[in-house]
């Protein structure tokens, strides 16, 4: 007989007889019990009201994770009736502590649809929610769980990371996460969560998307506790069994952390294409030029504007690098994708994704296994005032000019689109873009090369120094993506670096010399005013009027401020055209000039005032 049946059948055959007095006493005590906790803010807030308003939309009123919005989410919303919580401080399969639940509500879960609620709900509301969530499962009626002791993080560093890499091999993390950690291990396509839904293996190069948090302590915690309800197991037992040491597990955490950038990448609006002056334009993905070229992070999200929509994009971002040599542009786009679609190992996974997402949109995909695809999008022509085409491949008024790469075809072709799904391939004679692609360790790299000016009437001509709108779309065929159902970015700007103008090299020394000259003048002026400078003719000194000194000082100040403004313009131009070093030095010069100018103005004002 199940424990559940025990619970429910308990009262039915016992039938205790209750005396009214006793019941009254009990109820009185119950009241005292509830009132006896003055600091308990949850007493004033009904957790169910908060839950129904804010949580039920995804998690369902009955807590089973099947709210109206659940079908648009993968991973699916938590089913609270199972009392399976991924992020805990307790052992594998154990209940979470109240603090564990509180933390997830406050902070949300990175990489999922679960947002943080700290700024939305009051503390009292969140505490009431914690209590209410626990009512969905009878498991919480037992003893409260005991958190594990995690000790202190070991110091990181290269040795720890190197040891961690060995541990990664020993405990075979690569079986799911892949050799480079991109979630492309051989077992990845077979993974389901405990409720039977397909589940992605975490891409360990994107720690800002780790469900349990991306810092070393959080990674270590997940290694100790596992992520309940998912295939991610606990590694506590192998430490207990002496297979590896606790320090090894910390080293593994340091190694996993080292697979991601030190900071979550920031989104820059401008992608600069560096001008290559003494090296040839790279024609291959392996060219060392790419190692020295800045990577720009471009986040993507599911296309949910027009039907059929797609809520589960596999490609969450692309990295963009660009260089040009004055004749051609080379654009290298990289992104994580565990498979080279169509890959039969992923067929079953893709169809599970399609079945799970259950889109009722007209034209929604019913199967997976098409090719991977990337589209780079530009306006067909630049407009005055930076007006850009509609971001979903333009419209009839402002068409988009696109480069399309497909994994099954290879190469790329140019099209003109007047709205999503309308891309018309340009005639062969008008095809100028070349593309090569490489898939390795769960990552696509596609290199596009095109002449800056193709001479084609319908092709966008690229000019150094000019900001060109650019956007990206990506599809993972093995994830059931095709047509309108893929990932898309907003508009960014591509700016081609210019040859450094001569003025850039001449102007700073001139400006410095002038600054020095004017500085001397001001010092002399001040000394004259204060009598430090011995003028041979005392009478002439007397004649010098305060008015004249004031004019001179103010004049110097204004000129310096004007020069500071000029330096600022130079600095801005430097940054925007990819000459960050020049921009930096101009910013320094501008700052100094501005200080000097302001100093001259203020100094003159003070001196001429006190001299009255």
């Amino acid at each position: 007989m199940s424990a559940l049946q025990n619970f429910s059948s308990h009262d039915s055959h016992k039938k205790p007889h209750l005396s009214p007095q006793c019941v009254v006493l009990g109820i009185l005590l119950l009241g005292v019990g509830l009132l006896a906790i003055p600091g308990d803010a949850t007493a004033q807030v009904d957790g169910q009201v908060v839950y129904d308003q804010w949580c039920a939309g995804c998690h369902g009123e009955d807590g089973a994770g099947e709210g109206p919005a659940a079908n648009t989410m993968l991973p699916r919303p938590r089913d609270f009736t199972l009392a399976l919580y991924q992020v805990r401080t307790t052992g594998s399969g154990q209940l979470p502590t109240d603090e564990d639940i509180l933390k997830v509500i406050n902070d949300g879960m990175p990489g999922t649809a679960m947002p943080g609620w700290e700024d939305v709900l009051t503390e009292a509301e969140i505490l009431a929610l914690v209590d209410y969530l626990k009512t969905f499962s009878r498991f919480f009626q037992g003893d409260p769980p005991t958190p594990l002791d995690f000790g202190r993080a070991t110091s990181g560093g290269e040795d720890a990371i190197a040891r961690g890499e060995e541990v990664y091999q020993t405990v075979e993390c690569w079986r799911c996460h892949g050799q480079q950690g991109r979630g492309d291990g051989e077992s990845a396509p077979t993974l389901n969560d405990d409720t039977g839904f397909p589940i992605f293996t975490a891409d360990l190069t994107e720690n800002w998307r780790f469900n349990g948090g991306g810092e070393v302590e959080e990674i270590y915690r997940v290694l100790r506790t596992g992520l309940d309800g998912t295939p991610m197991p606990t590694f506590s037992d192998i430490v207990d069994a002496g297979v590896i040491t606790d320090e090894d597990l910390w080293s593994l955490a340091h190694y996993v952390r080292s697979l991601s950038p030190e900071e979550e990448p920031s989104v820059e609006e401008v992608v600069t294409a560096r001008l290559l002056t003494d090296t040839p334009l790279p024609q291959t993905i392996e060219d060392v030029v790419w190692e020295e070229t800045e990577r720009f992070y471009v986040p993507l999200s599911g296309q949910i504007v027009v039907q059929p929509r797609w809520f589960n994009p596999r490609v969450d971002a692309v990295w963009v690098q660009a260089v040009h040599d004055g004749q051609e542009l080379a654009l290298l786009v990289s992104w994580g994708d565990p498979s080279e679609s169509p890959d039969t190992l992923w067929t079953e996974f893709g169809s599970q994704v399609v079945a799970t997402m259950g889109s009722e949109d007209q034209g929604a995909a019913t199967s997976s296994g098409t090719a991977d695809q990337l589209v780079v999008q530009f306006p067909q022509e630049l407009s005055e005032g930076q007006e850009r085409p509609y971001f979903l491949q333009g419209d009839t008024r402002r068409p988009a000019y696109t480069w399309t790469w497909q994994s099954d075809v290879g190469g790329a072709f140019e099209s003109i689109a007047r709205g999503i799904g309308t891309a018309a391939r340009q005639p062969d004679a008008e095809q100028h873009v070349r593309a090569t692609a490489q898939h390795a360790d769960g990552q696509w790299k596609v290199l596009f090369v095109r002449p800056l000016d193709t001479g084609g009437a319908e092709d966008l001509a690229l000019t150094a120094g000019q900001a060109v709108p650019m956007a990206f779309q990506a599809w993972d065929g093995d994830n059931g993506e095709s047509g309108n159902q893929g990932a898309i970015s907003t508009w960014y700007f591509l700016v081609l670096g210019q040859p450094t103008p001569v003025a850039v090299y001449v102007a700073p020394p001139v400006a410095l010399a002038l600054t020095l000259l004017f500085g001397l003048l001001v010092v002399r002026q001040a000394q004259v005013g204060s009598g430090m400078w011995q003028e041979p003719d005392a009478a002439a000194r007397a004649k010098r009027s305060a008015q004249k000194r004031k004019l001179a000082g103010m004049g110097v100040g204004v000129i310096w401020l004007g020069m500071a403004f000029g330096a600022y313009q130079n600095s801005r131009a430097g940054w925007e055209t990819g000459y960050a070093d020049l921009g930096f030095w101009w910013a320094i010069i501008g700052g100094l000039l501005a200080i000097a100018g302001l100093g001259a103005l203020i100094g003159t004002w003070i001196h001429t005032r006190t001299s009255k």
Partner: protein
Amino acid sequence: MIERFGELRNTALLVSVFVIAGCGGGGGGGGADAGAADAAPAESPVDAATAGNVAGMVTFTGTAPMMAEINMGSEASCASKHSTPPTEEGFVGGADGGLANVFVYVKEGLESLSFPTPTSAVVLNQDGCMYSPHVLGAQAGQDITLRNSDGILHNINASPTENRPFNVSQPVNMDTNRAFPVAEVMIPVRCDVHGWMTAYVGIVDHPYFAVSGSDGSVSLDGLPPGDYVIEAWHEQLGTMTSNVTVTTGGTAEISFEFTEAMAGSPVPMGEPIDLLHPDGHQVVDH
């Protein structure tokens, strides 16, 4: 903070509940039947001299479903442990219509008895990237030794509903012990690293359970005389029950005849919600 408040409140509420509950006896007249229900079951009350047995066959009639061959190509060390290519184990039949991997146990009739938890462990072995046995029984609270005999990464992911789950990694040859404290038939176990590896564990709170062998034979020995409901559980064909009477020193016959038509029957289990099979029962297609 919240935990402390929670404790305070729980204590207060518990006291009040006890007061209400304690009122029962004081009311008079209700003491007798409440006392009878509360009587603790006797410890190990089986008299070997009077005990009898249950024995019989589990059979299958109809066309046996084809079991797919498992592709272990990616796991050479496991593949080399098998002389013939291994197949999935959702249905394993034997000679003369015998049906293997059926969990047979006393479902009703032992409620008044209590049995000590065995001190010895049962073993769930991972050998050649297969679970051995595929269907395993254990007593509530009894140690289950999860054994990795392959020396490559397995994870043992158990998904009960009445017990708490676990998901343990074993990257080398090693043993790890776990136990399920509450009776539950059945608990699915899987290896996420090797998607074909599944096993089922039946937990009961007495020692009268068995798993049919490939000839379909099964027996439950040493039962005290009395009336029992015996249940047979199969992962694809569902359950059947049989009422038997065990007499002193006698052997009660059981016969469970599963048929082809039962394929797709509800399989009682802590089973996952499966959108691909929306009726809620995970029936493996082949």
